[in-house]
């Protein structure tokens, strides 16, 4: 056997899938040829070392729960699948043009609204309103702002209800861009803080809520979250939050945490630190 032929078989040699008589022929060649022997040894060495990289273990319970939700939703969709009609065909034809990502939907809607406003201004109706021009423009701008704000909220809420943790994270970050959110957004953020199964989303919710800490609903929600035994990272972030806001209502809760033997030691110490800084 020539060197070239032997090297072409190295992949099977590595995975030990060579059959006789090729296997013996290659071994004979390796005994005689130092260059091939060295290369085979080097490759075999790195191939064996790859065993040392451990496999990643998934969070099976969490993944199974998400999978079951998806499967149930799919089954329900199958049960309620409408019989195809001409109306359905028209709808699905239109849906083909409509973007799937909420951010693009928002952008498209905002563009359509702008086009409508510009078109409306250029093609006035036969009976124009008698209101002064400056006042009319002011009202339009206010209405537009309100619509943009409503859409931002809609996008944030839609993202926060996604299956994917990274989409929910985007939703929480999006809510940061809203200056005066209504109760629905605050409730969604508090819901994420209390019930989201992903720690990163809960942590992002703590950060997002900081801006609205003066609202009663947020203060109550954060205190409730603090009383719930959550992941140490989230508890530490919540303690930092109440200390930063100098929220005296949380003193009792912090004291309970600092004395609770079931709580993570670092969290207990952080709660003690929080108590000192709240007094």
């Amino acid at each position, binding site marked *: 056997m020539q060197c070239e032929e032997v090297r072409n078989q190295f992949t099977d040699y590595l995975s030990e899938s060579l059959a006789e008589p090729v296997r013996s022929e290659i071994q004979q060649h390796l005994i005689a040829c130092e260059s091939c022997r060295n290369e085979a040894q080097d490759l075999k060495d790195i*191939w064996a070392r790859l065993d040392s990289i451990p*496999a*990643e273990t998934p969070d*099976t319970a969490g993944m*199974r729960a998400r999978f079951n939700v998806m*499967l149930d939703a*799919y089954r329900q969709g199958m049960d309620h699948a409408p019989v195809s009609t001409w109306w359905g065909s028209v709808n699905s034809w239109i849906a083909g043009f409509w973007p799937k990502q909420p951010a693009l939907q928002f952008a498209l809607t905002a563009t359509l609204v702008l086009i409508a406003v510009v078109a409306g201004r250029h093609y006035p109706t036969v009976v124009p309103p008698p209101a002064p021009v400056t006042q009319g423009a002011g009202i339009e701008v206010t209405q537009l702002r309100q619509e943009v704000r409503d859409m931002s909220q809609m996008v944030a809420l839609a993202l926060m209800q996604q299956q*994917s943790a990274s989409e929910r994270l985007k939703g929480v970050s999006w809510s940061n861009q809203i200056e005066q959110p209504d109760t629905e957004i605050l409730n969604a953020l508090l819901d994420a803080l209390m019930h989201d199964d992903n720690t990163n989303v809960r942590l992002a919710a703590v950060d997002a809520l900081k801006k609205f800490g003066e609202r009663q609903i947020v203060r109550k929600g954060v205190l409730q979250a603090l009383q719930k035994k959550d992941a140490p990272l989230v508890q530490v972030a919540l303690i930092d939050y109440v200390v930063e806001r100098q929220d005296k209502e949380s003193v009792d809760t912090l004291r309970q945490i600092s004395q609770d033997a079931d709580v993570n030691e670092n969290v207990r110490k952080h709660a003690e630190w929080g108590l000192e800084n709240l007094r």
Partner: protein
Amino acid sequence: MRNTLTDEALMLSVRDGDVGQLGVLFERYHGMLFDFFCRMLGNRTAADDLVQDVFFRILKYRKTYRDDSHFTTWMFHIARNARFDHFKKHRAEVLFPEEGFDLPGRGPFPSQQFEKEQETVMLQRAMQKLPDEKRELLILARYKELKYEQIADLLGVDVGTVKVRVHRAVKELREIFLKLSGEKASCNVKKSETSLRII
């Protein structure tokens, strides 16, 4: 009770409307897919999302499953597409940490053990530095234990090409690993020289 049906038989049932059987396939393969995505992306959250995406796509495209398809090959075909779409969507994200895989601080341990762990870290970094297609090939061949015929089917090339590519990928991995180990060794020498000068 353990389900003894083959993957292919289960997938055919799913295709024909018994979607509940996908649960059995999920139990068999979610761990394998999760490990595949983790090794490709180095990000557990993204891997978790991608596994869900793969099973969703299996449901969505179940009717395209052919009688003669090998289930794992078909599943990895979907997994690769899901990963490409994820990559397009999150192009700007740096998934692997730049200096990642440093082992967490822990108590003293025998130096031999330490060296072995450092070698593993170096090998993980060498894997990260491999071009995407070579890393994927090695993961499929080495960790997922896919046969070369299955990989060839998956990549749409012949078996000989797969073998040549695996050979090249292992060679390149070794070169990167040696380079990184050399850099690490010279870095350690510099460190000890500096500490000698300080003394």
